[in-house]
């Protein structure tokens, strides 16, 4: 209903791929209620690359899990063009922080299984998985087992598997945070290239402000305890992004704006970690 009216009222903006409406999430921990997310509303536009950034413990991962249907909001709703999100589905693909490939299968089989689960015939599934592995730069590694690949290559394979679902939204949960610095930079550029080809709508969660500003068409900064949208930013940076934009004034301004917004949060979080206290993470309770 709301999706339809948005479409009607704004003919020049792309349609909404995923809408989060008034989402809150409360956990009960040691008999106390802890509010991880507070009244989050945002719309991901079709074809958009949205990055969500925030200090650790701000609930950004929880928000992504809720978007993917892996967790339920305490209040509020999540919907795609296909309808409300009530659980995980092929329509919303998730790339996890760890590659999470099945170690008992080859890379190719990991991808083709995902295709087969969508009802695609064996032969076609194999053909498509080879295409996707080529797209993510894993040509020649089709029959390798996951443990024979580096962390970056494993994450490429996991990306190929998720792309095989042809999801209307691709969610990525700090997918490069477990990689070394050089591989991470390479993977960021690779992701930009793959997205150019696949044209997927992406929501990308990270704690790395540079990464968030470099990748995102739109950057959403969350403040922690409880997680609330503190800042939404659409910097005017050229696309497709290249490393050069990092030296532009727009990039630096955007970086500073996000950093200023979450600095206090980050400082408090790290101070409370150092003191060995949990209060900073748990924050206000309801």
């Amino acid at each position, binding site marked *: 209903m709301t999706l339809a009216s948005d479409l009607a009222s704004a003919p020049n903006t792309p349609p909404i791929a995923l809408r989060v409406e008034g989402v809150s999430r409360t956990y009960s921990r040691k008999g106390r209620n802890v509010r991880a997310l507070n009244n989050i509303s945002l719309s991901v536009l079709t074809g958009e690359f949205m990055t969500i950034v925030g200090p650790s413990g701000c609930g950004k991962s929880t928000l992504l899990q809720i978007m993917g249907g892996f967790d339920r909001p305490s209040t509020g709703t999540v919907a795609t063009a296909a309808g409300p999100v009530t659980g995980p*589905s092929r329509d919303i693909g998730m790339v*996890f922080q*760890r590659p999470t490939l099945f170690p008992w299968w080859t890379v190719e089989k990991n991808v083709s299984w995902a295709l087969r*689960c969508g009802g695609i015939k064996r032969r076609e599934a194999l053909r498509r998985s080879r295409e996707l592995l080529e797209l993510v730069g894993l040509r020649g590694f089709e029959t390798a087992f*996951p443990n024979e690949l580096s962390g970056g290559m*494993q994450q490429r394979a996991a990306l190929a598997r998720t792309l095989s679902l042809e999801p209307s939204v691709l969610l990525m949960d700090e997918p490069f945070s477990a990689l070394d610095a050089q591989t991470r930079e390479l993977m960021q550029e690779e992701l930009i290239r793959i997205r150019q080809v696949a044209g997927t709508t992406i929501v990308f969660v990270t704690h790395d402000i540079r990464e968030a500003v470099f990748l995102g068409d739109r950057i959403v900064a969350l403040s922690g305890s409880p997680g609330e949208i503190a800042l939404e930013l659409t910097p005017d940076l050229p696309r497709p992004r290249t490393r050069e934009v990092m030296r532009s004034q727009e990039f630096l301004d955007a970086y500073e704006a996000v950093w200023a917004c979450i600095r206090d949060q980050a400082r408090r979080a790290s101070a409370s970690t150092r003191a060995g206290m949990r209060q900073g993470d748990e924050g206000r309770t309801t």
Partner: protein
Amino acid sequence: MNESLLRWVRPLLALLLILGAWQAAGSVWSFPAYVLVPTEIAGAWFSSLDAEMGGAVGATALRASAGFVLGAVIALPLATVAALLRPVENLLEPYIGFFYALPKISLLPVLVLWLGYSDSARITMIAVSAFFPIYIYMHAGVRGINPDYLKVAANVGATRRETFLRVVIPAVAPMAMVGIRVGVAISLIVTFAAEVIGQSPNGLGRHIQDGFGILSYEQMYTGIVMFALIGLGIDLLLRVATRNRPSIWGEASPT
């Protein structure tokens, strides 16, 4: 010399070194009659290879396998169901906790009272003993499945059946294998005890116990060697049966 050959040669050399030292010690000092040197054991072992020994090995292997298989066939599905369904877990937990720490062999007299000095009693004894390690490992294996594996399965739209067969079973296979290997070892230990205490008319336990009774040290040692060979044989069989699945042995590290 290539790497795979070295893998065999090194432990073999180490074995020969120890056996050689043992042998040499035997010729320098005179050991008491109940300590045999390797050549004596080997000689006795070769001359013991007759139909009677074959019968003893067969009887023991049969008992151990029957008990082990019975224990495993009950433990594997039960542990899986208990790890997945809370009510089943609640129902079983007190009994598992109570019997786990109990020396299972202490149940043998009870079983003999119920079932007589029979193979039913002995095999039940072995099955009960093999059950627990297999159950415990399998339970921990199912509980320890990476939750992200199940999220991936849900994301790609795998059916429950597909998820169970293609994700849950391969994921627990390494832990199940550890449980099975421990179960095999326990089965052999308890087979010996069940044969001796359970008054078995045949089998390696009987063979060794008889050797002890008539002070025939050769007979005791040949029985012990045979027991070890059965254990080794079963382990080799497990290896061959799963040779196409290196991840079961933890040789392909999970991601």
